[in-house]
Structures are given as C-alpha cells and as structure tokens.
C-alpha cells in the first residue's frame, strides 16, 4: 500500500567547459570614450536574451569610469563591427566580456595619459567611476564629460580596441588526449518532487542550484540563467518529446510538443559560487549552458527516492511512471510470494 502523493529528493552534479571546445577561441571589440562622457562599444555578436548587453555595459562602464546607462553598444553586423564569433558555447561573458574590458582599458589609457598631463600627475594615479575622473591622493577631479572634451581639444580621440583569446587544444583522434578549455565550471542541483501515484504525475516542488560562475557580473542575471536552465531541464525531464514516425513528426505544434508552463515551476533556490578564473582579466566564467545539465538527473534521482522507480529513458511522463510503479508492484509481489 502506498500513499497517493509521495515525496522524495535527489541530487546531481555537473561540470562544463567555457567557450569553444578544443580549439582557439577569439573575440574582438572596439571602445570609444565619447562626447558627454558616454561610452561607445562595438563588437560582433551580442544579445540572444541572456542579458549580455547589460553585462557588457556594466563591464564597459566599470572600465571606462562611466555609468552603464551611458554605454551605447553598436553590434551584430559583419560589415560594421569586429569579429566576435558566435553567440553560444557559454562564451559571451568570457570571450566578449573580456574583449570589451581590454578595449575599454585601451581607450582609458589614452584618456588617462592626457588628463594626467593636464594635471601634472602620474598616469597610474588616475581613477574613474560613475562619470567622474580623479587623481588618487589629490583633490583633482572632473566629470568624464569634461575629461573627454579636454582630451579631444588636445587632439586625442580616446579610442581603443581589444581582443581576447581562449587557448583550447584539439583532441588526439585516437585516445582523445587534449586540453579542450582553459576554464571549467562546476554545478550541483538538488530536486524535491512529489509523485502522484494515481496519475503518475510528477511535480517538482523545489530545486536548489549551486553553480560556480567564476564571478557574477550581474547576480540577478546569473539567477535568471539558472532559473531558465532549470526549467528547460525540467521540461526535458518530464514532458518534452519530439516524436517521429518514419521520419514524419507527430509533434507539429505546441499542442503536441509539451512545454513547461507557469504551473510546472519549482521554487528555485540559487547559490552562486565565485571561483575566479585566473586566466582572464575579469575572472568571470559563464553559466548559460551548465545551468541545465544537472536538472534532469536530479529529478530522476528524486523520483526514485520518492517511489522507488528509476526512469532511465526521458521524459518521465505520467504514463511511464505508472507503468514502472505497476512493474515494481509485480516484482515486489513476486518476491513476497
């Protein structure tokens, strides 16, 4: 005899490599400290929804000494911007983020040199943040708007460029030996589920997700990536299934291809771990893809914990769960007899 609603918990860990695999990855960016103390960034690839525009603006603002809302990002155009390769492979923050940081530093070097000359101080003393520039250890200070104006009046346009490289090596074709990435991230998720033994339906009630991201440029954005990844993982774990019959799809639209809705969402509890990357200027790594790796196995492990059936073939539909429960009941009966 079994209660109708049974709960259980499961855990799964994961790892992932950052940026392109087993190859040399690269990206470029241009930066300009522009009129009005604003910043202009141009790079070849940006937003696909993950929030990289905002992350790049934060990085540029930090490096240029202005505010994120002062940054304009011109991008996405092979005829107008430097190559930054593709939007994928959990490479955006790592590759483009570091390129932008380097480009901004390059532009700042030129501006700082001029301002240092004006003030008669060492360039190394120049600091800037939030639209203001000053010389450390003095009361010399002006707005970035004034600084850019001054720099230009002295004949210098403060522009910079940057390129970042991640050194992966190819795999040996026979034994696979190689160093595919220079940065790795690790993750772990715990799932708590409730299984309805009448219908076979599984509700995921809680996910605790701990992920190393190197450095969270925008913690809320990192959470958003984790929450989105978890729910995609949940969809694959429980309901999504593209079905073919002799090459013809049986799941033409969203009436048949079932996606998670607002009623399927666990409470997602995120812990961000920041183990900085030593090989890049920012220390950030990434989170886009790794967020969903441990979700499905954590849920399957939780289902097993709850009702003692192991679903080894995704997705764990209500029908599969009930069939497994029936098979388990038969087995138990057999043992008892």
């Amino acid at each position, binding site marked *: 005899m079994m209660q109708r609603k049974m*709960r*259980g*918990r499961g855990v*799964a860990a*994961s790892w992932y490599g950052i940026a392109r695999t087993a190859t040399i990855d690269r990206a470029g960016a241009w930066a300009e400290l522009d009129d009005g103390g604003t910043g202009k960034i141009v790079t070849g*690839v940006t937003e*696909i*929804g993950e929030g990289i525009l*905002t992350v790049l603006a*934060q990085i540029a603002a*930090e490096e240029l000494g202005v*505010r*994120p809302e002062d*940054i304009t990002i011109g991008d*996405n*155009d092979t005829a107008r911007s430097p190559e930054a390769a*593709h939007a*994928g492979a959990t490479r955006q923050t790592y590759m483009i983020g570091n390129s932008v940081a380097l480009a901004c530093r390059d532009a700042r070097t030129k501006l700082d040199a001029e301002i240092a000359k004006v003030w008669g101080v060492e360039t190394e003393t120049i600091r800037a*943040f939030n639209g203001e520039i000053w010389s450390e250890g003095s009361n010399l200070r002006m707005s970035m708007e004034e600084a850019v104006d001054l720099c230009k009046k002295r004949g210098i346009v403060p522009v910079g460029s940057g390129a970042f490289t991640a050194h992966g090596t190819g*795999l040996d074709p026979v*034994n*696979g030996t*190689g160093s*595919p990435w220079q940065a790795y*991230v*690790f993750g*772990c998720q*715990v799932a708590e589920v409730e299984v309805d033994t009448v219908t076979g339906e599984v*509700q995921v*009630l809680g996910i605790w997700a*701990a992920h190393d991201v190197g450095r969270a440029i*925008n913690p809320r954005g990192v959470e*958003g990536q984790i929450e*989105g990844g978890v*729910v995609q993982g949940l969809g*694959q774990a429980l309901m*999504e299934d*593209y079905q073919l019959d002799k*090459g*013809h*799809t049986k799941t*033409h639209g*969203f009436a048949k291809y079932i*996606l998670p*809705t607002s*009623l399927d*969402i666990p409470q*997602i509890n995120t*812990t961000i771990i920041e*183990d900085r990357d030593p090989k890049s200027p920012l220390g950030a790594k990434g989170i*886009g893809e*790794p967020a969903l*790796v441990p979700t499905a*196995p*954590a849920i399957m492990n939780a289902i*097993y*914990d709850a009702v003692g059936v192991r679903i*080894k073939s*995704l*997705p764990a539909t209500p029908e599969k769960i009930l069939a497994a429960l029936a098979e388990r009941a038969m087995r138990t009966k057999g043992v008892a007899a």
Partner: protein
Amino acid sequence: MSDLELEMHINGRAVKRRAAPHLRLLDFLRDDLNMTGTKEGCGAGECGTCSVFVDGKLVKSCLMPVGKANGARIETIEGLAPKGGDLTEVQRAFHKTGASQCGYCIPGMVMAATSALRENPDAGIEEIKERLGGNICRCTGYTKIFEAVEIARDVIAGRLSAAALEPDPAGNSFIGNNVRRLDAPSKVSGRLRYAGDMVMPDMLHMQVLRSPHPHARIRVIDVSAAHALPGVACVITAADVPGEDGFGVFVHDQPIMARGIVRYVGEAVAAVAAEDVLTAKEALRLIKVEYDELPAVFDPEDAMKIGAPVLHDYAPTNITKHIPIRKGDVEQGFAEADLIVEDYYETQQVEHAYLEPEAGLAYVDHDDVVTVISPSQNITHHRHMLAKIIDKPINKVRFIMSPVGGGFGGKEDMIYQGMLALAAMKSGRPVRLVYTREESIISTAKRHPARITYKMGLKNDGRITAVEFKMISDGGAYGMSTEGVMRKAAILACGPYDIPNVKIDTIGVYTNNTPSGAFRTFGAMQAQFATESHLDICAEKLGLDPFEIRRRNMMQDGAITHTQQTLGKVSIGTVLDAAETASHWEAGAPGRGESRSDLGGEGTRAPCTLGARFAPAVAKVKKEVA
C-alpha cells in the same frame, strides 16, 4: 472575397478599415496596422505571445477572427504605456526583476500579468500562476516573472513603496551589481522589432516548398506554372545557387535547398517570393516535383549496419563523427572493482521552442552588398559560408543579427538565410520570410537524442575504478553540429570525477530523421544524465549518501581530466557543500522518500492544485488566525 468593414477603438483611437475576411485580429494588428508589439509565437493559441484585451477581457488574438473584434475596444501592449509615457507598474516591475530575457514572450506576458491584477488586484501567487498559465516563456524559468507580478501587485495596492521599482544603488562597482537590463524597456513595451516585425518598402514575402518524403531522389522540379502566376517575383531552387553549395557548422553537407535528393521530411525543395503570403502559398501549389522514393533509415543503429541506405557519399558508414577517449586501462580497472554496475539510458529529441520562430529579411544594397537580417547566433560563420555559396567576395556579403527571440543553439545553423539571399538577388527586391511554428518544428535542428550504455566499476568504499561509456546519437539527415556535440559529450561524459580508467565513445550517425544540432549543453546533458543517474544506482547498492559518493570521487585541485588535461583550482567540492547546505539535505542512501525529515521545508513551493481563485475566503480566514 468580400472585405469586412471594421470599426474599433484601439488603444483609445478610433480605427476604421477594410480588411480581408479571413484575417485574425493578430494579422490585422500586425500587418494592417503595423502594431508589431503583439507577437505570433505559434498561431494556435498555445503560447500567449499574442494576448490582447478585447472589451476588457484578455484573449489570444491568433484565435480571434478579426470580425469578432468589430466594434470592440482593443488594448494592446502599445496601449499600456503610451509613447513617451511612463511604463506601468507591471512593466517597471518586469524591468526591475529581470523578468525579460529574449523578450519575445514578454508583451504577451505583461498583458497576462496586467489582466491577472485587473481581474483580482489581491491575487495570491498561486492564482497569479494560474492566470499566467496560457503564456509560455522559454528563457526565464518564470521565476523572475512571478516576482515581478507580486511586486507590481503590492505597489499598485500601496502595500509596497514605489521605490521597490527603482534600480538598486550602484555601490562602488558596477561589477557584481544588479544593474537592470538595458534592453528591458524596449521589450516590456513591445517596442523592440524582431526580424518578423521588420518591413521594407517594396518587400516580397517568401514561402518554402518542403519535402514530403524522408528520402527521395528529385527527378524533376517544374516551376514554370508557379513563376507565371501573377504576383510572383521569383521562384528559386538549388539550380539558382551560383557558387559552391553547402553549409554546416563542421561539415558543409547541407545545400541551401535540396540538390537532387531530399534527406528528411520538411527539407526545403524550392521557394517562392511574391507580393503577399497568399500568392506565395498559391504558387507553391503550382510547383511540380517528381520524386523517386529511396529506402530510408530512421534508427541510428540500423544506419550503421552494412547495407543500410547511405545518406552522404563521403560517409559510407553513415557515421558523422566518432569521438574516442581512452585513459588508463579499463579492463584492469574493472578487475580491481568490488562492484560492477551496468545500465542503459536514453534521452529524447528535444525542440528548442524559442518563442520567436525563424524569420529573416534580405536585400541587395546600393553597393551590391547582399545583406541578410536575421536572428542568427553566428553571423560571422554565416557570412563565410554564404559568400562561397553565392560566389561573392566576403565584403559583399553582410549579416546583421536582429534581436533574437530565443536561440539556445537552434539559431546557429544557416537554415533559411541562403534562400532569402538568393531570392533577393534574383528579384532585386527585399524579401522577408517568417516561419510558422509548425515549419520551425519540422525543419530545424533538435537536441541530439542519445542511447547510452554504461558500465562502472567501484570499490566498496565508493571509489570508481573504471568507466566504459558508449553513446550513440541520431544526428538526422545533415551534419550541422553533430561533430561538436559528440566531442563535448565525450569530454564531459564521465562528470567531474577523478577516474583512473575510462573508455569513452560517442558516435553521431546520419539517418533520415529531422536533423539534430546545437542545443544548450551541446551533448553534455545527455551524457551527464547517464553518469549522474548511474552514480545514484551505485550509491544505493553501496549504501552511500549520494553527496558522499560524489565527494569520494570528485576532482581535486590539480586533477587530471578524462582527456588528461591538468586542471588548476577545482570548485566542485565547494559547489557540493553549497547545495547540500542550502537544501538542508539529510544524509542517507537513495530510496528513503517519505521517511526523510528534510521534505517540504522552506525552498519548496506548495503542490499545484488548480482553482486557487475559489479559495480566497479560506486564505483570508487563515491569515486572520495567523
């Protein structure tokens, strides 16, 4: 056809128009009035990107013939915050919490949230979730959306200060700060134009003829009748490709349109550019294609058998890519083991289901530059490939990445951009193509399904001595990202564990199924699903806590990976500790279920029982008691 005479009030303005009788309210808003804040995600009422108010009630405008809206008051996303006006509390809350990611579902989601709070300003979170139940979001995992709606509710009700909608203070660094998304205002207001929202003067509309067969030889394609149809500007087939036809991320095995052979159902065979979509569709029906059906193969293991139908001449075994990884001596490792556990795992084909279906707009500019605007995740590579395909110098090919309404790897392949470029070149006019949801599902790549055979040897203390891992993946009809997916799956297959002896093989195989391609995790989730399930089975057999078996095997600083790379610092231990602590995990072997003491605590939600709106009285009573 008799046009409808329509009069309605849209966002407070009187509109009087004639419209074709078959239009949906969605078409009328988007195509006739150019109000593109309302999106089309599925056309079948299943996603909610098209939600609008009609006489105060929220409906899905893709399910409403425009005639039904005649005489009605319509409110769209553009009407919530009039141009130049302040965003509403709901919109500002979405901005504050980061509730928009790709943004494509967001106009509809904002409308649904607005409706929820209009219907019940005191709605609890369960009722809010129910009222958002018709709107799919593929990016956010809904969590930040729920948070936003609750904040908006409380601000509107005066329970929470409007300051809650303001940005966090900067502190002394913008790094590590929750800077609000810069693109959110354009998304929550419906102002952002995706490729399918863009129009150009003199623009043509493309429709694509697709293969009804999984494997067939094309004997003849006769486009003459289609070409002769008034309103048709051009019809294109593989014969129109001027250069070296073929694209793909690792191997360029896929022609822009089927070249002599179709290899999967839904493969593009020909395309028409016409003055409007209906004419283009009619022209498709006039294209005559004669096929000789060929034997087809649908199972990757069958495809590797001798005598199986061969899809591509360069791969006579149908193996797209085999990645082997060898470390140590697995036979010796298994000999040393106290316990050997073998099992078999399967994962399914998964659709990316970004809410924005594929769309693009191509034109040839005044300097003869062939320009393609599309939500491409890889404009750099697309430019390279297209230049060869259309035989142009690389600086005469330009790719512009339009806002991407969700990608997840699914928009890395140059599936349709080549057709747009060819049609723009042939017609000399801008050409737009917008996929239907069904077209997107049938013709674009999926997550690779996997069949994984697993053998693990362990000592009684839980230490893994050896793993033998074999994964066979159906790559479908074209190579796309299969090679890379097999590589990443192989490298990461055995997880963050220090295992002295491994033998890993991942094999991607051609079949006549819908192609598999890049999808968030690129093979890693399939492989690690097996590893992490398998570890739990072993933990139970050894009576070990699942965290403990992972700790006993995890990589340490300086570990040597399965590909024999030496790592620096390794954070898996910290990560395991964090998850264990945060979840208040009670240690013990798997299979304890209801006897655990750590269930149902903070960090979990209540199970969903539909009908939250019937129970406000109950909730109120409970509140008063508390």
